[in-house]
């Protein structure tokens, strides 16, 4: 499997797919998509890369163990969730919004950060599971 073509292709595929996944994440509020599917696409990107270049190299690329993405994502979601409690004494998970919409993304608010958290967790989870299974297979 580790052919030159695949290796080369995966080098370009990885950033492309990652970009695409972020796109899916961001548009989720308006059209089908969202953090979960986006996260899955991002992990597929890394999996394809791993197929081509081997597990070790993928890990080097990631620098940290994908498992650490999970608490990071959870923490982002958590902070997004509790921010209204501190900012405006509203209940947990209440949407907080910036006044003006941003280009491309649209309205930005705590829900988006929450979705980003989902995205990161999903990447962390999928990669952890797949890497672990591959390593011990």
């Amino acid at each position, binding site marked *: 499997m580790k052919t030159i073509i695949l290796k080369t292709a995966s080098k370009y595929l990885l950033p492309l797919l990652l970009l695409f996944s972020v796109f899916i994440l961001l548009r989720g509020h308006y059209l089908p998509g969202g953090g979960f599917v986006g996260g899955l696409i991002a992990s597929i990107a890394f999996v394809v890369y791993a197929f081509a270049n081997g597990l070790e190299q993928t890990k080097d690329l990631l620098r940290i163990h994908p498992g*650490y993405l999970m608490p990071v994502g*959870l923490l982002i979601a*958590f902070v997004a969730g509790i921010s209204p409690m501190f900012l405006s*004494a*509203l*209940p947990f998970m209440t949407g907080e919004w910036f006044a003006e919409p941003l280009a491309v993304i649209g309205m930005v608010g705590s829900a988006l950060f929450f979705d980003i958290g989902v995205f990161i967790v999903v990447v962390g989870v999928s990669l952890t599971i797949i890497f672990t299974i591959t390593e011990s297979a």
Partner: protein
Amino acid sequence: MINHIVLYPILVQLFFAIVLLFAWNSVRLQKSISIFGCIVSLALSIWLFITIWTKGTLTIQAGNWEAPFGITFVADIFAATLVLLTAISGLAVSIFSAGTILRARFKFGYLPIFHFLLLGLNGAFLTGDIFNLYVWFEIIIISSFVLITIGGEKKQLEGAIKYFTLNILASMIFLTAIAVLYGLTGSLNMADLALKVAEIENRGLVEITALLFLIGFGIKAAIFPLYFWLPASYHTPPPAVMAIFGGLLTKVGVYALIRVFTLIFVGEDFLETIILSIAGLTLFSGAVGALVQNNIVKIFSYLIICHIGFMILGLGLYTEAAIAGAVFYLIHDIVVKTNLFMVSGLIYRIKGTFSMRDLGGLYAHYPMFSLLMIIPLFSLIGIPPLSGFWPKLALITESFKIGNYWLIGAVLFATFITLFVIARMWSEVFWKDGPVLNKVPNFRYFQLLNKRQKLQMIVPMVFLAMVSLYIGFGAEHIQRLSSRIAVELMNNQLYIEAVLNK
């Protein structure tokens, strides 16, 4: 915004679970964070409890979406009590874990998962949304799967497969029930459901939905004939895990049953007959199972089943006094069962076995420990005036009032078998001069532990023993609490008003 505190028990556990994940590499740090987190959680739970006790039910709408559209969290006195008990057991088990769990297990996420489990429990107690309840249940079962398998011993895995399959089956049935319920009412908020279900004309479908919930929760609560997973798996993980499982996991099923059958499905005769029969058979079958076992942990496992029968009985009798009895029993059982499994853990550390045949001589060599252990053991039997005794008064009286002597018989039978089994256990484990056991090489016998580890085992047991003594001798307080819970449960209007403001 005082009602924010409703979510604190959930948020604090979530927060500490996440923090523990960050501290993945340092076992020492994890232990400290966990114990600290449990103390914070206990403090918040006490605060919540006192607030609810003085001010009445509080609700909070997550996301600030008015009920029934968002997810509502409801801290009525029942939920607050269970959250408090979770915090108490959680703290005890957290300390106990620090002293008994193998370092290898800590290195693979034992503590974060443990806190996720507590998170799930708190969430399940506080949520006012039926689908959200499903989600909390999933948190609970996935955490328990990980805890039951962590370490990957052969017996752990064999037990886990049964545990896993039957619990997933339960979730599927639960989910099926939610599907039907949503199809009928178009709602998920439990208070709103209570109103909408009452309006449905096709009572047959309502009854079926109720039965699906009964079976789904019943599997988790380990009632007859749905309890198979429990004796197959509860004795396989380390004692600290058993303690939290034995104390709280089945109880969350009982909680859900009580909640759903006092709030949403009210007053269906057919159901009451079924629930009462189930209660009687659970008492019988659990007791009979405990009678034939030799392994002390398996005995305790069967006694869990047996004693679930008491709570189900209270629910089935469906009077205020009976529900109060069931709630009282629930409160007692959480504390005592948690402690019992820690007791068995201590015995195991001392002797290296769970088998009654091989155990012995504890009374002669550890008189103070024996005295400590006898508190949960006797509370379990319900030797008056210890904690297990009081709720039985209401259960027997109410069974008598409906003229069902079979149920009285079942209660007495279960109590008697518990008495007999514990007396025999006392005789075998504490009195008997046990056979000389071969030293298991590298086994961390109690004597070999350092002082801190010893304390980490003993302190939580003393703590819980004190709590159960309080439940027994301060039965007046607990009874008043249970009665108040029962009053609130029996008038589901109170709950509905608190959630929907109507």
